[in-house]
């Protein structure tokens, strides 16, 4: 799967989206697309599957809820029951606020940590795309140059059709 990348730079969002659609139709392998903001519709243009993060969030939230429910019952009714105003040991309604807060805490913080992990974001990581202005006002499309089927001049003309302002080869490190 090794192969050099062909990075093309666009100045307009629409050009980028349409070039991405066209490249995908041609059967080119889209390594990634770079944009200064979340371009709507690009996920479908790239054919990205829906994220699994909602499941992570749900399961972590569920974990938090169950843990906190069990812990409160155990602490209040088993470990050291204390009579507070004659209330029953297992006063479930009174446990709801803490259960809710822990659910949100686990779901929220855990989802973000999974996001960092899956997206490969970590402190101190260097970005390889700093010279393309893709965090400012430009858009970039990175294609993989694979095998004999990759016709450079045909790809170039396809990208030019969508007003690519710059096309250059890069290593695999993007």
């Amino acid at each position: 799967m090794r192969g050099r990348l062909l990075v093309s730079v666009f100045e307009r969002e629409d050009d980028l989206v349409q070039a991405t659609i066209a490249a995908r139709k041609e059967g080119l392998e889209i390594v990634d697309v770079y944009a200064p903001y979340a371009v709507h519709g690009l996920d479908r243009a790239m054919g990205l599957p829906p994220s699994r993060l909602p499941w992570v969030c749900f399961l972590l939230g569920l974990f938090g809820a169950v843990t906190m429910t069990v812990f409160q019952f155990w602490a209040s009714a088993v470990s050291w029951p204390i009579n507070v105003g004659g209330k029953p040991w297992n006063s479930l309604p009174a446990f709801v606020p803490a259960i809710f807060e822990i659910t949100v805490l686990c779901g929220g913080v855990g989802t973000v940590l999974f996001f960092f992990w899956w997206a490969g974001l970590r402190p101190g990581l260097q970005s390889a795309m700093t010279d393309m202005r893709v965090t400012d006002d430009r858009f970039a499309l990175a294609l993989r140059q694979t095998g004999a089927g990759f016709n450079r001049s045909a790809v170039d003309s396809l990208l030019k059709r969508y007003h690519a302002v710059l096309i250059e080869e890069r290593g695999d490190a993007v």
Partner: protein
Amino acid sequence: MANGVAIVRVPLIAGNKSAADVTREVTAALDAKPSALWWGGLALSSSALLLGVVAISYEIATGIGTWGLNRTVGWAFDITNFVFWIGIGHAGTLISAILFLLRQRWRTSVNRAAEAMTLFAVMCAGLFPLIHMGRPWMFFWMAPYPNMRGSLWINFRSPLVWDFFAISTYFTISAVFWYVGLIPDLATVRDREPGTTRSKIFGFLSLGWTGSFRTWHRYEVVYLLLAGLATPLVLSVHTIVSMDFATAVVPGWHTTIFPPYFVAGAIFSGMAMVLTLMLVARSTMRLQDYITPQHVDAMCFLVILTSGFVGLAYGTEFFTAYYSGSPYEQFAFYNRATGPLAWGYYIMVACNVLIPQLFWLKGVRRNLVVVFIISLFINLGMWFERFIIIVSSLQREFLPSAWTSYRPTSIEISTLIGSFGLFFTCFLLFCRFVPVIAIAEIKGVLRPAHGSHPAHDSYSGYSEEVNPE
């Protein structure tokens, strides 16, 4: 291909800007030499902060006896300030989470600053219960951890414990939400001027963000999930704060209307604080194109709405007291409107119910100086609301022989001033060192000036406009 809505609608961001303009203009504040006004504000707020540090140090060294509390009025300035600040924070989450879920795109101009405001306000709020403990170095006793006393667990049936969970979760989630929103902008600043110290620091914090759409795709999901979690969270936080009161038997506190009443009041006071801060930031940081009269209008409408909720709650409280037939409940409200703190009650009604009605007039909403002044009145009124609820209810409870009055000491007043100092010092530093406007989000709403993608926010298909030639 243009659709009618896009033509008729006034663009959210004025000045027909390109994405590069947005980057340049928002980050300009990081490079510009701070103005004399900024230095003046910093000097004032850090002096206030210093006063607060002195007052709190003295209080911790001496004890809570330095406050004007007595056996009848056991909560006063401290808890008033706590509820006031936590309420301020709620508008930030409303803007960042609830308006995001409601697809209110105008929020992009103010959400970064409003979320920062939330963080700083929650910091100020957390301070008060902490010092009210008397021995703040024992604060960790609030957490359920295995200890050498048994283990003696905390009482999970207590609203004060719920509060501990609510406030700490709220602060954590707000901070995470804010940071996640900041990552793309940190990368923008990093790439602007490679090699500088700022670029290195921002590069470290931006976690190697490249602008990869695979990451953006997940990022959008994370943002939506956090908004979905923060929305019930923010409602739960002030609900739980109100339960600190509502679960007590004190007449004037013991009412079921408290949770919605407190949540509406919180958002109301917070919107006023957002207006206060953003109107100043808008003119001093030259953000007129980003925070347009349209944005001010939208915030004024939210103020009118929540002012209506609050006014309705004031009326309902009186009606419920009258209709309950309980002499104690009736007296609590009679006392509120005619007793020794009646002056505070009328300040609260005037500032929270009457003055905001001026926002119905377009002329008032368009005059930003007037809007600013009204927002200050609302801040004042909402502080008094909490003060009246707490002190007027406590000072004349069931037993007339225990009736007393309350007067804040200089230490309490200094602590309140100190909390404002902390808030504004943090906010001024934030304006200098962090992009105050969410750059990446603004670029996403520039559409009318930036191509012809129809119905941008409805996710409608691009496929029909694929035009290879």
